[in-house]
């Protein structure tokens, strides 16, 4: 078993409306040094496969086909696959 994490972010050139609102809220709470906030998604995928290379290739394909929209988003498959015990 492997657990893989995928980070999905809006492209840096796009305005992130959620981030703008959070930045304003953080400033209201007194965090005046905050200069930028951007919100992404974290997706954790558990795969029944122990071949790290295959796992990474498959997850990358999942991102391209479904998990990220290449018009507005970029994705990052976090490098380290974590072995998890089978249940």
């Amino acid at each position: 078993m492997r657990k893989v994490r995928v980070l999905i972010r809006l492209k840096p050139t796009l305005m992130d409306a959620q981030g703008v609102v959070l930045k304003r809220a953080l400033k209201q709470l007194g965090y005046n040094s905050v200069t930028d906030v951007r919100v992404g998604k974290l997706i954790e995928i558990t795969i029944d496969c122990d071949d790290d290379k295959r796992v990474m290739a498959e997850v990358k394909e999942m991102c391209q086909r479904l998990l990220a929209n290449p018009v507005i988003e970029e994705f990052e498959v976090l490098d380290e696959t974590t072995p998890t015990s089978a249940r």
Partner: protein
Amino acid sequence: MRFGVVVFPGSNCDQDCYHVIRNVLKKPVEYIWHERTDLNRFDCIVLPGGFSYGDYLRPGAIARFAKTMDALSEFVERGGLVIGICNGFQILLEAGLLPGAMLRNRSLRFICKYVHLRVENEKTPFTNLYRSGQVVRMPIAHGDGNYYCDEDTLAELESKGQIVFRYCDELGNITDDANPNGSIANIAGICNEQKNVLGMMPHPERCSETILGSSDGLLLWKSITNWVEGNGRI
């Protein structure tokens, strides 16, 4: 001519579209469950509004993999007419049948109100009874209607007449104040290069009877029948 209205789990404007086509336009129409693949008998297929699959991941991201969507791509290649309204537009974008993508409304609010639209191209199967430059009123109801595409795509949309509707003020001026959601170039609706696929965020099915406050949407449905029954002449 025969219409079909695709029903996904979470569609909620399917019955409104069906009602307008059957009872107002008075044309044959049937529902198409999202697993059906026999689309040959239809002339125009509607992807209705709603929240297919709960908008999980991104609006339209899951629905685009429905079995009907594969058949729909072939239907489009054969020249069949497809109109995606609201969530239907989002599905067409996710499926790559139209260029670009939807972002959250810049206000982050779900916006449900009447807006003014300017008809930008009357030479399509969907708008041939309007006049270019005509200002119409239609309601919008969405949280993710902030249309985005890159600059090259935008230039192509402009030069090929693929921008069909833009948000405007009541006089037809394209202003930022009249832009409800932050869409690039005030875009409210676009079509593909072949002009047989239209995606739009406003709801023509909700304004096709005067009792509902506006019948400006009815001309869109009539344009479709005009085009099909006139064998593709505009």
